């Protein structure tokens, strides 16, 4: 029997990458657990509340999106809508051209990864500079993030030191402090050259038309101090109804992601710089971005749009730990990606990613840690059903056809006979097992001794004795 692609990826994954991912993930899990237990008597109640707020928002998205748009415009933000990646790229390009920019300093944005924005603008001759340390390193390596919060969880210091040396950032030195200082020095100059700064957005409050960016490094702040024009690319699902609701999200986001009460910088941005401020953007653009989110909204998996990109699910996922983020062949890895990526791919892209929801033992650890209480295992099950009904071949690999099984299981007499006959398999060499899944099983594990019919016989006798006693 063939194995699934993600399983093969895991098999050949380098041991040091696996260990780096495991260590990073496990540390995230324990930090999250500790801070939630220390700070709140009932963190689960807050998770449920956050889930309800997000679900309500999604189910009234037209209302909140319209409100947010009106408020942002009133605040002096130029609001744009992008149906898909091409539209987003065109509009971003237009703004950059209008500003006659050459250097664009960019903060971490998963949405921009969805549309491969860096490649697009670099090909057009722009100097696109990733400023988040992890993303900066990935850009130098022509690599991609493997985690939504810790983009280089899969790299170690030696690899980074070699990369820096290769790109003229200094002689080989793998001290994390030195690496950081070098990036700080190099990127400062870029910030001040950059005419345009690009960011993503963690939340938008519909009530006030404020967008929120959370970082630890201060890279988005620097972009917003150095540049004269700000472009924010934000998915339409990032809305919450009110400023007060931001409190629910912000109290969960840092704790769930990195075990912090708050990240170092939480920026509430509602417009270009104030009149008295000498530094910062004179104009601000928000691009409200769809890219198939409406497809997800229309599906029976819309709960996945609650996601606030904390990464807790992938930190706790044993399958993610064994395979690392790149195994998911898409922007979003782990349990989040297993649901979101096949759906964001749209009708055309779905078959290629239809196997992702299979890469799970349905353990439910992800749902337990999700700050917005997304029922991920249920969504994975729905997607498996979708794969079966749509005959998605990639999902079917390794899963036995259940037709014979369901025949047996709906014909009790045949079932009982089959169980008794199975005893003949005892003592048979494993590679001679007539049933493919059993052969596959026995490659790695022993099979217990067949005891078909034994319990039923006992039960019959036992019931007779009991009736006599009465």
């Amino acid at each position, binding site marked *: 029997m063939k194995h699934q692609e993600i399983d093969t990826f895991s098999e050949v994954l380098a041991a040091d990458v696996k260990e780096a991912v495991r*260590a990073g993930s496990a540390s995230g899990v324990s930090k999250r657990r500790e801070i939630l237990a*220390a*700070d709140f008597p009932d963190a689960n*109640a*807050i998770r449920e*509340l956050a889930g*309800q707020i997000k679900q*309500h928002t999604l*189910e009234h*998205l*037209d209302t909140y*999106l319209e409100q947010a748009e009106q408020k942002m415009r009133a605040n002096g933000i130029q609001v744009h809508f*992008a149906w898909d990646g091409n*539209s987003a790229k065109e*509009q971003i390009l237009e703004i950059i051209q209008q500003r006659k920019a050459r250097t664009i300093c960019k903060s971490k944005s998963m949405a921009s990864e969805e549309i491969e924005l860096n490649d697009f603008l670099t090909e057009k001759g722009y100097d696109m500079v990733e*400023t988040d*340390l*992890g993303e900066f*390193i990935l850009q130098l390596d022509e690599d991609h993030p493997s985690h939504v919060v810790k983009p*280089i969880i899969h790299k*170690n*210091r030696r690899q*980074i030191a070699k990369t820096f040396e290769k790109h003229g950032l200094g002689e080989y030195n793998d001290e*994390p*402090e030195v690496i*950081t200082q070098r990036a*700080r020095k190099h*990127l*400062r100059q870029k910030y*001040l050259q950059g005419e345009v700064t690009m960011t993503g957005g963690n939340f938008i409050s519909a009530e006030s038309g404020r967008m929120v960016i959370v970082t*630890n*490094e*201060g890279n988005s*702040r*620097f972009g*917003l*101090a150095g540049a004269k024009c700000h472009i924010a690319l934000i998915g339409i699902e990032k809305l919450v*109804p009110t400023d*007060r609701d*931001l*409190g*629910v999200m912000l*109290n969960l986001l840092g704790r769930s992601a990195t075990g912090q*009460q*708050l990240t*170092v*910088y939480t*920026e*509430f*941005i509602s417009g270009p*710089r*104030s009149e*008295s*401020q000498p*530094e910062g953007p004179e104009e601000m653009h928000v691009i*409200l971005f*769809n890219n198939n989110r*409406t*497809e997800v*909204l229309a599906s029976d998996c819309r709960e996945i749009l609650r996601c606030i990109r904390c990464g807790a699910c992938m930190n706790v996922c044993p399958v993610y730990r064994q395979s690392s983020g790149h195994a998911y062949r898409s922007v979003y890895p782990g349990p989040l990606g297993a649901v979101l990526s096949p759906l964001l791919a749209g009708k055309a892209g779905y078959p290629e990613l239809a196997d992702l929801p299979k890469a799970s033992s349905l353990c439910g650890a992800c749902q337990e840690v999700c700050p917005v209480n997304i029922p991920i295992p249920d969504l994975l099950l729905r997607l498996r059903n979708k794969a079966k009904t749509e005959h998605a071949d990639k999902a079917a690999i390794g899963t036995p056809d259940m037709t014979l099984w369901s025949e047996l299981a709906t014909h009790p007499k045949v079932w009982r006979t089959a169980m008794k006959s199975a005893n003949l398999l005892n003592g048979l060499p494993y590679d001679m097992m007539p049933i493919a899944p059993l052969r596959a099983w026995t490659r790695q594990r022993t099979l217990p001794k067949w005891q078909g019919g034994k319990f039923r016989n006992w039960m019959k006798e036992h019931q007779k004795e009991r009736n006599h006693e009465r």
Partner: protein
Amino acid sequence: MSDDRSRIFAAIREALQPLQSAGKASPYPDYEVGQLTSLPRLGAEESWQAFARNLAAVNGHAYEKIEECAAFLQEHGVTEGYCDPELIDRLREGLGSAFTLHPEFDRASLERYSFGITKASGIIVESGTIILKDRGTSNRLGALAPWVHVAVLTEEAPIFSTMSEALAELGDDPNVIWVTGPSKTADVEGILIEGVHGPGQQLCLHLS
């Protein structure tokens, strides 16, 4: 682009129509913000003490005496920097003659400023957070680029007990920043390094 907008709204409405027309769309949950406050962090001390404790927990430093702040800066060899011109007169004497205060920030000479002193527009006790607002910050780069940032909390700036209180008073400033300690990263093997793009030292000075 307006075509994009119409398409998106039409798609959203179509997606939600079955739910909304059946009256099954989830209601907005009513809740008390009290449950969001971390009582252990709020503590039982007086506000400034609790704030100082929480700021220290993220490796920041809180001072009520300008002389202590000056001592810190001198210890770290940081004596030339940028200062909000509206604060210079108040601070010059307390800091002392060892310090050179520039009232203007020249972005072409970042190295000149080993510290930046700007106004805080408030603090949040439960998280040790310093609130910066755009209208209150004389220069965004001055508050960000130098290795040391001193946020000066003057008498009129509010002291919020909780994040929820602070969220209720974000006001109409276009750029409100909650600063919770010095900048940091753990991107390299999960090892914590302070001082990335933002300051490596974050101070708060309470003037009263």
